[in-house]
């Protein structure tokens, strides 16, 4: 500090520098903030407003603070809401069970093939979501390459089908969101300091104890991030239910689509979206509180 106090010029220079340093974060975050304001906050406000309006396409929609849109949405579509949460939970659980060993193996035993293996997980996802789901429709069709062959050998009854069931929808969701679980898990496992693992072994820890006392706790932030990244889009998904589902498999995303595209009932569609968003946010909040999230920001 002392050398700056030499002359007045230096002092002014110093102040200017300090001011600039103080403002720098705001300048740096301005593009991001502007982006969020324009493409997140404004649409959100717009949607909140629409969800309280009444009217129809012909007469237009007017703001009437019609909160009944929310109670209507819940009373008409609670079945689909609950179903979406159940499908989303099961699918997320499946991705966790499948991804954890996968990510573990790549992180600890992948060696120089790590990047190749990660690329292999991601490779199918260079293809559009819808096309991938349509491919499953083709593969799993009643007389298709899998079921048709098994039926031909009389390993399955003739009227057996996978498509148009809740199993197909849940499996489709689990498949489509697998990388959202696998990648954060991999990052968390890869970051674990190997010397900690060695220390545990030096202290005569069994393999099982190393996993349950060292690796698993250290990978929890990855599990948290993975669950979050998978569950949120899984609950709102509508493509899988539309393509792989049958009767009584409709999810809330399909209802929102129907309300928006066929009925042009923008207020009800907006209210449904907000209820879904609120339910997810509350769930995440409770979940974050329960699990403790000190390290989450590193992953999310």
């Amino acid at each position, binding site marked *: 500090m002392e050398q700056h106090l030499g002359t007045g010029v230096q002092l002014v220079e110093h102040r200017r520098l300090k001011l600039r340093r103080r403002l720098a974060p705001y300048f740096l975050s301005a593009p991001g903030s502007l982006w969020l304001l324009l493409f997140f906050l404004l649409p959100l*406000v717009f949607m909140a407003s629409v969800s309280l*309006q009444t009217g129809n396409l*012909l007469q*237009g929609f007017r*703001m009437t603070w019609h909160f009944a849109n929310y109670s209507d949405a819940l009373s008409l579509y609670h079945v689909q809401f609950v179903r979406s949460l159940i499908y989303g939970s099961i699918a997320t659980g499946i991705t966790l069970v499948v991804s954890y060993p996968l990510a573990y193996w790549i992180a600890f035993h992948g060696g120089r093939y790590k990047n190749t293996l990660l690329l292999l997980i991601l490779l199918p996802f260079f293809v559009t979501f819808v096309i991938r789901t349509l491919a499953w429709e083709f593969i799993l069709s009643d007389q298709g390459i899998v079921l048709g062959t098994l039926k031909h050998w009389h390993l399955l009854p003739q*009227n057996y089908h996978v498509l148009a069931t809740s199993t197909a929808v849940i499996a489709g969701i689990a498949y489509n969101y697998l990388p959202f679980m696998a990648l954060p898990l991999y990052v968390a496992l890869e970051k674990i300091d190997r010397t900690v693992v060695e220390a545990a072994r030096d202290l005569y820890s069994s393999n099982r104890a190393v996993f349950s006392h060292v690796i698993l706790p250290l990978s929890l932030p990855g599990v948290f991030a993975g669950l979050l990244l998978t569950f949120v889009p899984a609950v709102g998904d509508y493509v899988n239910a539309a393509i792989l589902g049958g*009767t009584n498999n409709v999810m809330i995303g*399909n209802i929102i689509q129907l309300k928006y*595209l066929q009925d*042009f009932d923008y207020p009800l569609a907006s209210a449904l979206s907000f209820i879904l968003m609120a339910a997810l946010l509350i769930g995440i909040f409770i979940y974050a509180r329960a699990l403790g999230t000190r390290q989450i920001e590193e992953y999310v």
Partner: protein
Amino acid sequence: MRVGPDIDPALWRGLTARRVSRRDLFKAAGVTAGAMGLSAILDACGVAGSQASKSPSATGVGSQSWWDQQKKTTQLDFANWPLYIDPSILKTFTKQTGINVTYQTVINDNDPFLAKIIPALQNGQGTGYDLCVNTNGGPMDRLIALGFVIPLDHRKIPNFFKYADPNVKSPTYDPGNKYTVTWQSGFTAIGYNSKEVKNPPKTFNELLNSPYKGKVGMFGNNQDLPCPALVAAGYDVQTSTPDQWKKAAEPVMRARDNGTIRAFYDQSYIDSLENGDILVTQAWSGDIFIAAAPKSIGGDGYPEMRLNLPTEGSIYWHDNMWIPLHAQNPVSSMMMMNFVYDPPIAARNADFIWYVSPVPSAKDIVLNDLKDPSVANSPLVFPTAADIAKTQGYRVWKDQAEEEEWNSIWEPVYSS
């Protein structure tokens, strides 16, 4: 919902729609600046209705004097459904008129297409199309009520008045053909795989009670499922009451909940029928024709596909050509409408797509010049007056409230 691998129509439209002018940009900037306070934002969020533009003035869009001012251009942007035209007639059109046609098969389903173009029209922007094809019933009614359809210039379509089938002249949904002329028509009937189904259903109720559990397809929209159900229950589609709607919905829900119905389909039902996922299904007449025809003549090559018109009567619907507001080349659209009502052209189209032709005199041309008696004599392409008399049309709703009540009964049936 089926989304093809095609280029996103929004991209096409972005590339083809008129550019935003400088004044529009300033206007938008002004709106943004004005909407600073929250209440102002909320105010701006209201979605304006468009009924004001419903009453056209003597000089407004679509009036005679407006049409007189429109100049012939050399471009036509035509939006239609996939596999719904003989592409060679577009070449003939270009050769005869010098108009270059950008033909886009961007319509897979009425409602999603409307959902895409209506916001643009509400903002006073063009759709990027000069000519679209949409079905009567909800979609066409909605577009006309919103005032988004340019009234036609009847002086430019002499072929329509000369050759059109009386059935498509002045239909209930568009009296006097003020806004639309029919592209093609079709029947909602019953399709089946004759290799697997030995005792095909002849009525809607037989379809619902068919022994092929989990192999029955139904339509999942608010006309093609409800209307046949009403006919099957013995009600008149147009005069039926909400109580009758509920009664007609019951057997459908029973078949859904006991596992007979596999799923409620959109256009994708035809793929499921072809690959054996469903064996019997509600079907649109021309689709089954195309599915059964050999690949060499443009069909799908599944000769076992058959169609039954339900004995209690089928639903007869019309896809209509219409010109969206702000179309850049409306004269080209009128010329195309007139062109496809020319009997030789209509014959080529009918012989290619196998839906009901709106030009009865095309039948002789298909029979004698194109030498295709199977199409010419098919009651599904050239039905007789007696065939048509047995049919009913889509429900025309009195008002928005009635449509909402209808939807509140039928939507829970097909999207549960």
